[in-house]
């Protein structure tokens, strides 16, 4: 209250600015720290390329998670959906199906899972937690069935190239991740459906009374997320040259973490794609930097969690006073 007729605020304090940008500053501090520790290596072309390569698939799945979280829900099944899509593509190609057909079918499977999630949540009014937990369970089972519990490999050269090939010495998944996140950014920002998603996430009842078809908006958000995460999973299979039932399972938690980190970047505290990319980068830089410093991977996991807590706490301080 009482800020109603406030004039433009005179210069805000440095401290406040630091708090506001907590997460971005954490990222810059991380980069500065690793650069100081290994100036010869950390910001070298090879290593930056490495980091981008390593986070490209997470970036795709985190974009999908962003869409769902903009609508105010979240999707636990994205990691499993991506694994299943990779497995379906691999199984079909090993069965002699042409590459692009296999990819399309696999992407379609992801889309259908997203559609099912959306239907359960928007139309049958299940909670997102229950619905996506259940589909995750089933989808993991399907992935085991598709792979028969083994790792599928010997995929066609052309397919592996999608994940391992390079253009201008930069791996293709990096470009694909950039294109997909740009498309999603544009969709969220410039399209009517993007506006409907923001409105639904802001306040469902307000959106409904304003003439937004809230149920369709949620359905479409989950559907898009399913499709995009499937693309991520197909790319992961191409990148590894193989597909197993669980190979993308860590992407689910990391994608949620990235979106949460990203929510701290903007003032309104809503999920946003730019912020998500900052979050993805933090996670990627952490893992790569600590690997380069030779830090034990268990310690890495502890530190990653702490960094997330630190960034989120720092950013939440700014809201404390209200």
């Amino acid at each position: 209250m009482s800020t109603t007729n406030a004039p433009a605020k005179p210069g805000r304090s440095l401290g406040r600015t630091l708090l506001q940008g907590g997460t971005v500053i954490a990222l810059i501090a991380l980069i500065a720290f690793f650069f100081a520790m290994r100036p010869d290596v950390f910001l070298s072309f090879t290593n930056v390329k490495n980091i981008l390569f390593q986070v490209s698939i997470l970036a795709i799945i985190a974009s999908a998670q962003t869409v769902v979280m903009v609508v105010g829900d979240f999707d636990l099944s994205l990691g499993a959906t991506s694994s299943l899509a990779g497995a379906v593509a691999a199984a079909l190609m090993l069965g002699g199906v042409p590459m692009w057909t296999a990819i399309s079918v696999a992407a379609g499977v992801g889309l259908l899972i997203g559609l099912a999630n959306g239907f359960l949540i928007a139309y049958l009014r299940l909670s997102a937690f229950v619905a996506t937990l259940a589909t995750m369970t089933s989808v993991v089972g399907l992935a085991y069935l598709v792979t028969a519990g083994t790792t599928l490999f010997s995929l066609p050269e052309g397919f592996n190239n999608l994940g391992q090939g390079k253009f201008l010495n930069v791996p293709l998944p990096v470009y694909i991740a950039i294109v997909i996140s740009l498309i999603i950014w544009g969709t969220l920002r410039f399209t009517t459906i993007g506006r409907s998603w923001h409105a639904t996430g802001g306040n469902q009842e307000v959106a409904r009374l304003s003439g937004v078809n809230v149920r369709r908006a949620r359905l479409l958000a989950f559907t898009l997320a399913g499709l995009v995460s499937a693309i991520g999973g197909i790319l992961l299979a191409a990148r590894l040259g193989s597909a197993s039932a669980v190979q993308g399972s860590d992407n689910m938690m990391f994608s949620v973490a990235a979106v949460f980190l990203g929510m701290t970047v903007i003032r309104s505290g809503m999920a946003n794609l730019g912020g998500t990319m900052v979050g993805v980068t933090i996670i990627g830089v952490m893992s790569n930097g600590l690997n380069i410093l030779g830090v034990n991977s268990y310690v890495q996991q502890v530190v990653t969690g702490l960094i997330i807590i630190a960034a989120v706490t720092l950013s939440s301080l700014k809201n404390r006073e209200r």
Partner: protein
Amino acid sequence: MNAALTTEDSSHTIALEARDIFKHFDGVHALSGAQLSVRKGEIHALLGENGAGKSTLVKVLTGLYTPDSGTIVQNGSDVEFANVRVANRAGIVALYQELSIIPSISVAENIMLGEQTPNRGGLVQWKTLRRGAQEQLDRLNQTIPLGKLAGELSPVQQTMVAFARALATNAQVLILDEPTASLTDTEIKDLFAVLRKLRDQGVAIVYVSHRLEEVFELCDRLTIMRNGETIITKNVADSNIDEVISTMVGRAAGELYPERGTATSTVALTVEKVDGRKVKDISFTAHKGEVLGIGGLAGSGRSELLRILAGAQKHTAGTITVGDKTLRPSPGVSRALEAGIALVPEERRSQGVILSATIQDNIALANIPGVSSFGFVSGSRIVDITRQGMLDLQIKARGQRQPVGELSGGNQQKVVLAKMLARKPKVLLMDEPTRGIDVGTKAEIYRLIRELAAGGTTVVAVSSELPELMGMSDRIIIMHEGQISGEVQASEATEEILLAYCYGKADSHVNN
């Protein structure tokens, strides 16, 4: 209006005093030298327009905010409340405007929440808990089943539960923020009786309200705030409503309601035999340029009728016709909007605006078809309609991109209006158009409604305040238990006639 008891009988001991309180947020001063002195055994009204600093002062008194400077004195000694719990322990309890009940737990648990929960070694003593909760409800003369989930209660009962909880903490100073907002007249009478009893027991009560009639009926003294400062404290008996309003607004109270009489004979909205949840067999017409008021007690189906008309709630029978176009049954909000019916809903904060979103985004929300082509929205068109809306309605804000949550209640309501007016509706439905809005902005809203009507819009407005119904409408329909119980021209209406209709008593042939 009863003359309030004078405070002469009380001992004049000061229960709680705030001296020279300053508080600012983001460089904006919310309080600059606020004073308040509440005596034991009095009901003290705290008045002021929205944004005058009442709520901030209350939050300082209850430990929610720490003041920048100034002192709080309780029973003669300086105190500092680090947080709400400390203030609660000191016997200072606030009951806020936004109901603070937990819908998912029982009535008894709500009343005996937190430190009031009796326990032995961490185990809840259910018998003691229920007995304690029943005691508080008895003090309020309420018969609410203790085991029921609080979320299943009516809003009225929820208020009572929140109130019972405040009583359960043995408050010495009780701060009530708009406690009667969703209560019926009978319930208000009961509440006032309880408050008077508490006062006689020596409790100090701070009563924050926009309803001045209530203040003059109930309170002993009043303090008026404006722009974060305390302007005056005096005995209610020595004041009058006009003086209070002019002190609050800082200028003489002008005529609140504009001239009537822009209604034409062209029918704009025809409702025939509409049935739905809480609504039975409703038929009426509204004309171009007319302001049609709809009244009735809480729960009489007023809001549901508006929601059905707006496509936000299903109807099971009947037809709705705008101009000469009959809508399909249960058209949905989007089709109703296209047909020219727009709704400004009752609960502004939960139904009207997205608080975290900007003014732009809120206004764009209801106008997606208007600001987009081929699925892409146009930023410049959003800027245009937002600028137009802010100009037309004189919305005070830092800019188009200010989050709506930072605006005052009146300006938030104007954003809701702007959002819907950008659709250029033929029929504008408004549910409690001035709830929680200060007097100054109320007058603006009434003028606006009249301007819209003069421009050919049909306004159908629900209000639970009879003076407002009579002041703003051309014609009034009263609902009782889901049906229309009476209709009267506003110029011929009196509170007695309207109240009789509200209780479904009068014959329906008066003044048609």
